[in-house]
């Protein structure tokens, strides 16, 4: 590995010979840090046997992130399974926000963050397939309602992730207190179709808030609010199933586009993983890096937030949602 720095702002300097404009963009605007190169793995049961080797091979090829798409196996579990089998690569399940129990989904994603030591992300999709709705006994939502639901679930998830202060587990042997309730808060989210009380059943995860990205493929269904206002950024989808011809130009053009949300992930989809995926990926990764179009390969211990140039979010304590308010109220003079 050519660089060992974990500081996101210095990432572009430490590597190869980046194009001058890319370096400038990365240093002048941290929101526009170099995107991370990702490869999409479809979680097909057929893929199981070679899955560990494939993930490790892609990591060795310098890929910064793996997105795990739904191919039958559950993407979050497959991402979690890959966590101890890999060391540096970020893991982003591409998974539905709509036909789910938001509390379970948020818990699963923050658990993935614990297990992977801060390498978790969420590539949010908003399901439109009626079969998925029928499987959970719900009727398909219209496009507008789907988008609203996706935004609600994303907001609820962040409130759940933010419900424990980083130092909530105090282990105060003197007072006999393990967890300090004043450092916990209720999520208290009420959306159109569901509400969540909280707090999380899981302590705050290493990244605090798991980075949420929306792939171009999913932007329409997820809606502008989830995709543009709420998400941390966009995943530029590059279908390489018919060759990798215009990849560099496309990435360059997308990064220059100042209007949309920042390109945080350059995602290679449609790779033939049975043939020679590592060869194609290694070649593309090298070319993209030489042009200064994607971030260097991640270093051990680097979180996905660091890779993406996102600051660690501070714990935001809302006095109205403090979970020990009942205790405070009961101590008020009568």
């Amino acid at each position, binding site marked *: 590995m050519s660089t060992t720095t974990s500081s996101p702002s210095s990432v572009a300097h430490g590597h190869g010979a980046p194009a001058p404009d890319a370096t400038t963009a990365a240093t002048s605007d941290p929101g526009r840090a170099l995107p991370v190169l990702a490869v999409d793995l479809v979680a097909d*049961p057929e893929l*199981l046997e070679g899955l560990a080797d494939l993930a490790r091979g892609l990591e060795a090829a310098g890929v910064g992130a793996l997105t795990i798409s739904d191919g*039958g*196996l*559950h993407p*979050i*579990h*497959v991402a*979690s*399974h*890959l*966590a*101890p*089998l890999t060391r540096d690569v970020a893991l982003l399940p591409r998974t539905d926000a709509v036909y*789910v*129990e*938001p*509390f*379970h989904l948020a*818990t*699963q994603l*923050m*658990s993935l963050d*614990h*297990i992977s*030591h801060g390498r978790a992300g969420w590539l949010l999709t908003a399901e439109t397939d009626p*079969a998925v709705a*029928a*499987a*959970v*006994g719900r009727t398909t939502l219209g496009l507008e309602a789907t988008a609203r639901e996706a935004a609600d679930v994303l907001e609820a998830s962040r409130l759940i992730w933010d419900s*424990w202060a980083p130092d*909530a*587990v105090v*282990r105060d*042997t003197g*007072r*006999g*207190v*393990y*967890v*300090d*309730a004043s450092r*916990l808060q209720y999520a208290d989210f009420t959306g159109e*179709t*569901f*509400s*969540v*009380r*909280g*707090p*999380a*059943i*899981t*302590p705050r995860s290493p990244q605090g808030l798991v980075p949420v990205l929306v792939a171009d493929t999913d932007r329409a269904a997820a809606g502008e609010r989830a995709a543009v206002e709420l998400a941390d950024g966009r995943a530029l989808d590059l279908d390489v199933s018919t060759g990798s011809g215009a990849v560099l130009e496309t990435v360059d053009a997308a990064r220059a586009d100042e209007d949309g949300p920042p390109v945080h992930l350059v995602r290679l989809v449609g790779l033939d993983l049975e043939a020679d995926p590592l060869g194609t990926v290694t070649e593309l990764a090298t070319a993209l890096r030489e042009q200064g179009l994607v971030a260097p390969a991640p270093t051990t211990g680097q979180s996905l937030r660091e890779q993406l140039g996102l600051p660690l979010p501070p714990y935001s304590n809302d006095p109205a949602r403090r*979970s*020990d308010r*009942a*205790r405070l109220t*009961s101590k008020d003079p009568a």
Partner: protein
Amino acid sequence: MTTAQFPTLADSGLSAEAAALATGTAEHPIHSDHTPTGQLAFGAFFQGVNSSTIWRLPSSGDQVAWESFESLVRTAERGKFAAFFLGEGLRLREHRKVPFELDVAGRPDAQTLLAALAAATDRIGLVATQNTTYNDPVDLARRLQTLDLLSGGRAGWNIVTTDNAWTGENFRRGGYLDHADRYLHAEAFVEVAEQYWRGESISHDGAHYSVRTQGDLPASAQGRPVLFQAGASPAGQDFAARTADVIFSPHGGLEAAVDFRRSITERVVAAGRDPGSVKILPGAEIILAPTEAEAEEKVRWVRDLQVGPEQAIALLEQYWGRDLSGFDPEGPLPDVAPEVSESGVTRGAGFQFAKAEELTRTWREEAAQKGQSILEFAREKSGARRGTFTGSYDTVAERLADFARLGAIDGLNITPWLIPSGLDDIVDHLVPRLQERGVYPAEYAGATLRENLGLDPL
């Protein structure tokens, strides 16, 4: 066939206590329909939230760190444990409307964690406690099958039910289920899951949900996840007898375990199943030392660390339903009446539905009779809530061999009182003694959880 061809009860090495509980032949010591395998399978139960896990020691590890789970599961696998279980709680426990501060709290999602542990282990089963009330059956079935495929046929599901609106506040459905309906609902839920695992086309319209889908994943090496159930009530026992592969019982005492085996055997036969097809694993805490005297001392030490003065008062407050902080933990039990008629649900399943008036009166009398302080009483009660095997390595090994030979249980589901080193002495000192006595496997029987629990193929 006469019993003379088989060893007699006296020959089988049973203690006098165990032999006295046997009413049948050497082949079927406790029920004519039940044949003991004479073998024990161990499970490690990482509960995550409870009062038994000690957090005050320097050796108490992080309760959510990957390293803690990895270390514990590796020890369990070294000891040829059949399974590693994770508990579940879908709302942070509260005490007097404030999240409970005195016990270990906070844990990762069970299945997400087990999917990762599947990559760190080879043989041990991976069992997730998952609630039927606050999950969608197809979503849960698909997750469990994913875990089963990722682990090469080592997944299990500990089926639990809830009906309270307090937990439901975290979920779309809220508290929509009547208490009486929870097993009916659970049974319909399990049926849908089984249809999904069999790859069937599902069209279910039940009282609580409708499902239209098609099972679309291949079967795992063991066919489907192993089903666990903790059925203590008659309705729970019937549900378990009809659906479960393994039952977690609360009965750690030999006599109670024998009674439970008889009860389950009858219900399993009534459900048209082979009694050997349902295994019984009581929940257990094991506290060991080289000698009896050291073990006694260690039990006191463990209880002191598990239940401090604050926890003792909080335990009573749970049943009294009022502030008892003015009472001295070293003094007698509070001589005041409870403010509730039933204990609350907010501390989880283990604390539900006790009639407060009756219970607090009984407790006061019991403590007074034994001359116990609040602290002493709470420490004893805290230990009494689970099956406890304490003593020297040899005593406990001999006692467990009795259970196995009699066929009272098929193993134990052990909650370590310390994370992550709480299984070390069990694996290093108890397991070899059980192996010497021929009641514990020297090697894993196979690659799947079904095989390692001694369950027949589906």
